[in-house]
């Protein structure tokens, strides 16, 4: 089957920043993304688990976008405008997709 190169961007960010991030992505015409709940983890602020969170201040979510390579810079500029000073991880991977017209 023919595949097409794309970029997969995973942004793990504080739950409180989710709507700001997705609004910024939409404004940058990145309308395709998936939001995943994060169950827990460990980082510079120590260990945490989602079940132990009582507000939205310290939980995390992951926003996953798959886009054409030439649109990567626009996405990163939009995302960094929001998440630059916040706790989180941004990672970029090469991937292949089957239906290129969807990205």
């Amino acid at each position, binding site marked *: 089957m023919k595949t097409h190169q794309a970029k997969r961007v995973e942004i793990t960010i*504080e739950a409180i*920043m989710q709507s700001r991030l997705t609004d910024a992505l939409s404004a940058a015409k990145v309308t395709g993304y998936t939001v995943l709940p994060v169950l827990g983890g460990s980082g510079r*602020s*120590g260990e*945490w688990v989602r079940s*132990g969170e*009582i*507000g939205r*201040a310290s939980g995390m979510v992951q926003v996953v976008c798959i886009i054409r390579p030439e649109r990567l810079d626009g996405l990163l500029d939009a995302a960094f405008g929001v998440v630059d000073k*916040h706790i989180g991880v941004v990672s970029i991977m090469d991937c292949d997709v089957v239906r290129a017209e969807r990205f």
Partner: protein
Amino acid sequence: MDQILSLAANNLLSPIILSFVLGVAASLARSDLSVPEAAAKALSIYLLFAIGFKGGVSVAAHGVDAKLGLTLLVGIILSAGLPLIAFGLLQVMTGLSRLDAAAVAAHYGSISIVTFVAATSVLQSSGITYEGYMVAVAAAMEAPAILSALWLISRGGSERRMDSDLWREILLNGSIVLLVGAFFIGWITGEEGLSEISSFIVAPFKGVLCLFLLDMGLVAGRGLRSRSGVLKPGVLAFGLLMPVVGSSLGAVFGLLLGLSTGGVALLMVLSASASYIAVPAAMRVALPEANPSIYLTLSLGVTFPFNLTLGIPLYVAVASALTGA
């Protein structure tokens, strides 16, 4: 003095406070006891609705008196002013940066609605009445502290702007909407409305509160266990001193307003408590460089347990002594 200690001891041994202690102890002992996330959220929705509704019914029954507006104003003044005192104490007692100190200070001007709910339950158990509109005062004390903290930061030369998203975060967070909304539903429907749903929101209230506080104990204990290392002795001491300072101011203003014994106790509780839901969320947006481990551990792991186990019984006892009840 003996009477104060006796009343405090009786309240200390109430099921709701002992449930919280059980949660903290289980967590510190690394038990696998946990309350499912969805259940904890449902319990909190129930409690906020019930306390807001009953507050509204009380206002409908007794009418709006002249003290309502003044008490709301005092609540706003306390919420805006307490962070300034907290900030001063933090600068004297701790080596926290200006940013961290301002973030911590914001938490101590705002309130903990769970502490407030627990206090109302203790008052009811003791047969002490209070002004129903104290629920509205609690809601009014959520936000001003955040503005004070941002002002403290701007005085240090670092500008922080309040955007519309942040305003929405502060004023329309789910807890506030539910609490204020239920208050107005109770106010509109009055005693008749209460009688329709009393078997749901009156009878099970204390049992639900016990389960919720068990979960809060687990959360507080977990936070203490995993993050206690971030609290230096000065910061820890602040977490225990500030509730005493806040409650003292609450007592003074409560007496000046001529509130009932329960009203004075609740104003003391509101002034003594520290936010761990609304303000942390606002601080993560407005002051992302501030260390959340410090302010969350301090408000949820130190001040909340202190208020729940020792503070509430003492505030109720002191309010009783001051008002001669």
